């Protein structure tokens, strides 16, 4: 039954979960929020990263977080190539780019799903590490250690990315290219290269986010479908491209999910992020922290 303790429990877990949602959404916040790429394959790349981490952990006993770090450079290069491909085939040609861009990324997501199934099968996979499975007890509250780890890494990742975008030359260039590509071109910078770099960063972040994903819960090949809702909900609610907004929106989603879960049961959980997304899109499409254009 409903009680205050239960609610408090849900809120604490929700905040931790929310930070994790922020970590998995950061990349999309850059690629979709700042660069306007309709990147529906973002969660598929996330799950792919999880499986890479699983592979390293299972076969070489690498710590999941370290494995996540190890695959970031590969994901970075991957992102560079993917954006170039996207740019050459869609943005430069112009006509109808929206429709075909979305279809393109959906196709990519499907290909990734099947390749994972063919390689690893449809079973759930999880990693082993000292911090997976244990829990902290504070009074009656039980806080899983894996959530705390995810929380810490997610917070660090958000802060780092925010600093990168606001303090460094390249970071500022990325934000500038999102606002006015032509102005940047006139100032002698190459906007396409900057966007490509930004997409690389957005994909690289997924390496670590993928590690968090498989630390927080076991993964399966079609998990990306649920995360389409979560990541897009966070990014849209945050108001495209706002990093701090991403954190707040993700926490709202995390708390909403755990509260609904506690009150109504797990069978309603998949719909929450999508319902919130629908609500935000219908009522306030510019997001909670977005500017009115």
């Amino acid at each position: 039954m409903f009680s205050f303790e239960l609610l408090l429990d849900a809120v604490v877990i929700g905040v931790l979960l929310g930070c994790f949602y922020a970590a998995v959404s950061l990349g999309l916040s850059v690629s979709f929020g700042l660069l306007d790429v309709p990147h529906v394959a973002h969660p598929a790349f996330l799950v792919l990263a999880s499986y890479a981490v699983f592979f390293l952990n299972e076969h070489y006993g690498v710590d999941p977080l370290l494995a996540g770090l190890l695959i970031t450079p590969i994901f970075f290069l991957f992102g560079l190539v993917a954006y170039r491909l996207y740019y050459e085939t869609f943005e430069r040609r112009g006509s109808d780019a929206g429709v075909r861009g979305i279809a393109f990324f959906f196709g990519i997501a499907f290909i990734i799903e099947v390749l994972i199934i063919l390689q690893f099968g449809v079973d759930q996979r999880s990693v082993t590490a000292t911090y997976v499975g244990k829990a902290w007890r504070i009074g009656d509250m039980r806080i899983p250690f894996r959530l705390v780890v995810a929380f810490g890494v997610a917070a660090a990742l958000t802060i780092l990315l925010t600093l990168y975008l606001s303090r460094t030359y390249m970071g500022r260039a990325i934000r500038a290219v999102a606002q006015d590509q032509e102005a940047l071109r006139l100032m002698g910078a190459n906007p396409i290269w900057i966007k490509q770099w930004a997409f690389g960063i957005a994909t690289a972040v997924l390496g670590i986010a993928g590690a968090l994903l498989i630390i927080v819960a076991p993964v399966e090949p079609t998990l990306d479908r649920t995360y389409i809702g979560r990541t897009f909900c966070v990014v849209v609610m945050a108001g495209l491209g706002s990093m701090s907004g991403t954190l707040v929106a993700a926490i709202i989603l995390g708390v909403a999910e755990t509260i609904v879960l506690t009150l109504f049961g797990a069978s309603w959980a998949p719909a929450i992020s999508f319902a919130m997304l629908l609500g935000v899109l219908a009522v306030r499409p510019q997001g909670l922290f977005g500017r009115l254009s």
Partner: protein
Amino acid sequence: MKRNGIFFWIGATLFLAAALLMTQIIGNQYPFFAGYVILQFIVLAVAWSILGGYAGYVNFGTSAFFGMGVYTAVFLFKSVGAPLAVQIAAAAVIGALMGFALGLLTLRMKGIFFSIATIALTIVIETSITNWRYVGGAAGIQMQRPAVTAPFDNYVEMLFFVQALLVVLAVASSRYIHNSWMGRGLQALKDDELAAECTGVPTLRLKLLACVISGALMCAAGAPAAMYLQYADPTSAFNLNYSVSVLAMSLIGGTAHWAGPVVGAILLGTTQQLLTVTISSEVNVLVLGVMLVLFVVAAPEGIIGLIRKVRRNRNEGEG
């Protein structure tokens, strides 16, 4: 146009006659099982392209409409034992209402926002059905096929013919829209919605109308599926694979002409049927993904676009 119309209706009649003849001659049930799925995909792809192709609004909610069709049929059959025709008609009405609601909800959304909203709608509806015990909940529900009516020998043959009728209905609607003021209006709003609005195209009404027609056809196509499978469960009825398959079929065929989705659905639908039987359903999804990416990158206008290009080049060569 006039002569084209006569040819079209002669073709449609021949198609229906052939479908009916098939049910009378072929004793083996398998061709109808496979053929039914391909016909179902033709209806879905044609319906999708009314909104997605003509108006440029990429609807990922095909599975929402299809699944609603399935569950409208399940509900009506379980509660009052309604016959197939009633199930389909009711599904069409529900689909039209859903399309209208979708249109109203997403009026201000464009591009990826619209697409994401339609995925969201799918998952929200799927979750609601999963939590609705009466129609089976998450576990799904068994369906008993009622007795067959003459002239068909078994229920699958009848479903096959019914789906063939829906194909003709869908293609005729799509063709009518394509050739009428509606098609031109939708094309205008696809190219530039603001400009279309300024020149007096009633973009809002057109969008809603496209949503309603497209939704009604998709839902109607889903209604017989519960009887076809003799089973319905939310995960497969609302599977995102329907949305992506249908999108792929339309884009592969070409969205600029009403025949595009038909060509794409026949081609990809047949390939999928063959692959599922001969290799596996995973490889089938892989082929779907690869074909989608390849066509989107290499042949943006689809097969119809390629044919047009070849024709144009030949004409130029002669002249």
